[in-house]
């Protein structure tokens, strides 16, 4: 069966460290993958998109990698800040215009 897995346990890190979140998938062959941020009680907000032929994408303190052989994407936040505390969702393109979302990983950055 098709599955997207993100670590359901919260990730706790200290301010200034690099946070690394994982998205693994099975039985999908996505042409691209997106990452979103969601704050409590609010809708997700788009962060980054990476295509299957791209190994890495960066935007300010954010970096995403996409390994189609391992069927995995890693999402990094460098120099993390308490304001980065949120739930981060990965989403795979599964067909025309449609996305399938993982359940998300909650990140807690303590001062």
């Amino acid at each position, binding site marked *: 069966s098709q599955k997207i897995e993100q670590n359901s346990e919260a990730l706790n890190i200290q301010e200034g460290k690099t946070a690394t979140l994982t998205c693994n998938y099975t039985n999908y062959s996505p042409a691209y993958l997106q990452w979103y941020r969601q704050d409590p*009680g*609010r*809708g997700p907000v788009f962060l980054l998109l990476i295509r299957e032929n791209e190994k890495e994408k960066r935007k300010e303190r954010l970096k995403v990698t996409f390994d189609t052989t391992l069927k995995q994407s890693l999402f990094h936040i460098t120099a993390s800040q308490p304001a980065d505390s949120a739930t981060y969702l990965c989403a795979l393109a599964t067909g*025309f215009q*449609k996305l399938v*979302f993982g359940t998300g990983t909650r990140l807690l950055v303590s001062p």
Partner: protein
Amino acid sequence: DVKVTQSSRYLVKRTGEKVFLECVQDMDHENMFWYRQDPGLGLRLIYFSYDVKMKEKGDIPEGYSVSREKKERFSLILESASTNQTSMYLCASSLSQGQGYNEQFFGPGTRLTVL
């Protein structure tokens, strides 16, 4: 800025009632989506529309219907609300552009409780 608005932030309804959730976007996006989000299950697609009067079932369409009479508005209808439809409902929109490499813009969500 793209804005997606939803008619209510919180809604309480009784079992058997017909419920309408409205979503409006102001950026002329072709695609609109309805999701529900539940703890441990993540976001699940209910229905999708890629044009006015066009709709496509998502992963969990049972018990729901949709209406898209105008490009900017996408309505989700619960024909006869049940307690297992208590959830957070999120509307999203995106541009239609070639092979769909487009981000989705989400509304703030409607937390629906069915008693």
